[in-house]
């Protein structure tokens, strides 16, 4: 029973492993900015995977949660002069709020409808943001999220420095990872598995499947909103494309590429995706073709994703 032991050991120490990894990660990356991007999209993919991998619900509307978080953070800072930490908090809440609205409608549908309805509702959010240009900057995006200096209990951190910026983002991501692992190990995590595995039995056991899905959607919105807020701080701007459905597709790709049923898979998927995108765009502007082909190949030949395949290989 070596594989089970291995997996169990990884699970036991995953918090420690993650922290060590996060500390050394920027030092091995070609640019610090990529490392920050990978963290942010990794977090976004984790939040998405809580719904897809753990609960089995395929959402194609997560751009609205990520973008919603980014806009909430940006609007709080630009229009209301909120400090950076309040901006992040606003992003977290913004993601959850939009998730609650989209979720309330989308969980009425099931299976394939769910993917289509979440996509359509997210497009609706996109158009609203596009029209409300006084607030969101419309098609120019929300500009001027200028955070240069982070004040933490009297300790000033220069946020312009890429390595500092990385560690600030990493601290939030580490916290989110910890929270997520707690959720997955909690009684609610058990309910999520049960609903994914067999809806009818979960219901017969006494679980309200709809409410469970709704709560999971809102929690997922919290993670994605946090990722969006970090993205807004990182870029100093929220491009309107953040809300477009291609962003939703991006996160689905990342999760699938890494391995949906696994804890770290989405993170690895985000990393591989962004590195691949960077590499390919060095020699051609048509990186989308390569990425699309990689994705198609992944669906056809590696449905378990990179991390899922590795775990399976170990298990054999």
């Amino acid at each position, binding site marked *: 029973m070596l594989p089970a032991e291995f997996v169990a050991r990884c699970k036991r120490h995953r918090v420690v492993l993650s922290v060590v990894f996060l500390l050394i990660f920027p030092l091995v990356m070609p640019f610090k900015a990529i490392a920050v991007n990978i963290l942010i999209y990794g977090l976004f993919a984790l939040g998405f995977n809580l719904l897809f991998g753990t609960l089995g619900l*395929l959402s194609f509307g997560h751009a609205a949660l990520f973008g919603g978080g980014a806009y909430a953070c940006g609007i709080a800072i630009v229009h209301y002069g909120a400090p950076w930490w309040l901006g992040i908090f606003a992003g977290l809440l913004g993601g959850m709020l939009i998730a609650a609205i989209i979720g309330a*409608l989308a969980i*009425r*549908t*099931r*299976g*394939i*409808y769910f*993917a*289509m*309805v979440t*996509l*359509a*509702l997210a*497009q*609706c959010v996109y*158009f*609203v943001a*596009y*029209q409300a240009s006084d607030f969101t900057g419309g098609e120019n995006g929300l500009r001027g999220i200028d955070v240069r200096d982070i004040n933490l209990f009297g300790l000033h951190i220069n946020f312009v420095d890429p390595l500092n910026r990385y560690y600030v983002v990493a601290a939030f991501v580490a916290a989110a990872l910890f929270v997520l692992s707690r959720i997955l190990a909690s009684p609610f995590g058990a309910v999520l598995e049960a609903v994914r595995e067999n*809806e009818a039995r979960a219901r017969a056991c006494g679980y309200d499947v709809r409410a469970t899905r709704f709560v999971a959607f809102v929690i997922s919105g919290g993670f994605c909103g946090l990722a969006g807020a970090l993205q807004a701080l990182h870029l100093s701007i929220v491009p309107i494309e953040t809300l477009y*459905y*291609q962003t939703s*597709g991006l996160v*689905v*790709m990342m999760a*699938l590429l890494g391995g949906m049923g696994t804890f770290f898979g989405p993170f690895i998927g985000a990393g591989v995706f962004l590195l691949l995108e960077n590499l390919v765009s060095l020699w051609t502007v*048509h990186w*989308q*073709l390569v*990425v*699309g*082909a*990689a*994705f*198609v190949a*992944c*669906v*056809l030949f590696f*449905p378990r994703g990179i991390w899922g395949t590795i775990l399976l290989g170990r298990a054999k």
Partner: protein
Amino acid sequence: MDGITPDLIILQLFTGLALGAIYVLLALGMSLLFGMLTVVNFAHGAFYMLGAYIGIVLLGIGLNFWMCLLFVPLVVGSLGLLAERFLIRPLYGRGIDYPLLLTFGLSYMMVECVRIVFGTQGLPFDTPELLQGASDIGIGYFPTYRLFVIGVAAMVLVLLWLFLERTPYGLIIRAGARDPQIVRILGIDVGRVWLVVFGIGTGLAALAGLLAAPLQGASPEMGNSILAEAFVVTVVGGMGSLVGAVIAGLLVGVVVSMTSLFQPEMAQVSIFALMAVVLLIRPQGFFGRAGLMS
């Protein structure tokens, strides 16, 4: 609200129907694919876009618009056949999410290929001479081309209906949709049926794209936003229901054009608001069967 006369409203209604006709063609294809193959085609918008570009190519080699109406669906439908045979077929029986994800990746590739060949800028697409100008429809003048779009969609509907209801092949398709096992027992190659259905579905999308091109030009991204709208139509009409696709397509078209008359900035949002209302009242759509999606 000055200047909005009953005549104007009726003209706008026709504009809505023309837009709706394009939605109908898209949603018909999508519903066919879902109803018969349980494939949600995320590349549907890309096939729509391809319809416009293949039209440009065919016009470029000297075909006229009328021949395009026939050949564009054939060419794109053949590409659809290839996609089904080599990419989607291996995924049957592996759950409903996989074809969806695959077609999503495929749409990325198709859009990028078109960008490589035709450039990232959109291309103009002239309305055929015969259909330029406006015709008197009793209450005022209305662009002839839009009337033509409505007419083509109506004709396609009739042909599709005849094909499904009155030909032996249509019978097999309908039977296959209900119970593939039976069709297999009867010694019919179900794979070939699926292939044909996929060809028809993507061909319809291409026809929609071709018809839309004179109205808005051709651009690599033209399929992106219409995909979400086609989803709305399919959801509102009820997945897998052809009647639903027709009624919902026209309805959505009219709702969009009416909102753009009164509240132009809300036109895009109104589509999704309509969907939200339908979902609240009837989650399976107008003609969808409850529990089908589980």
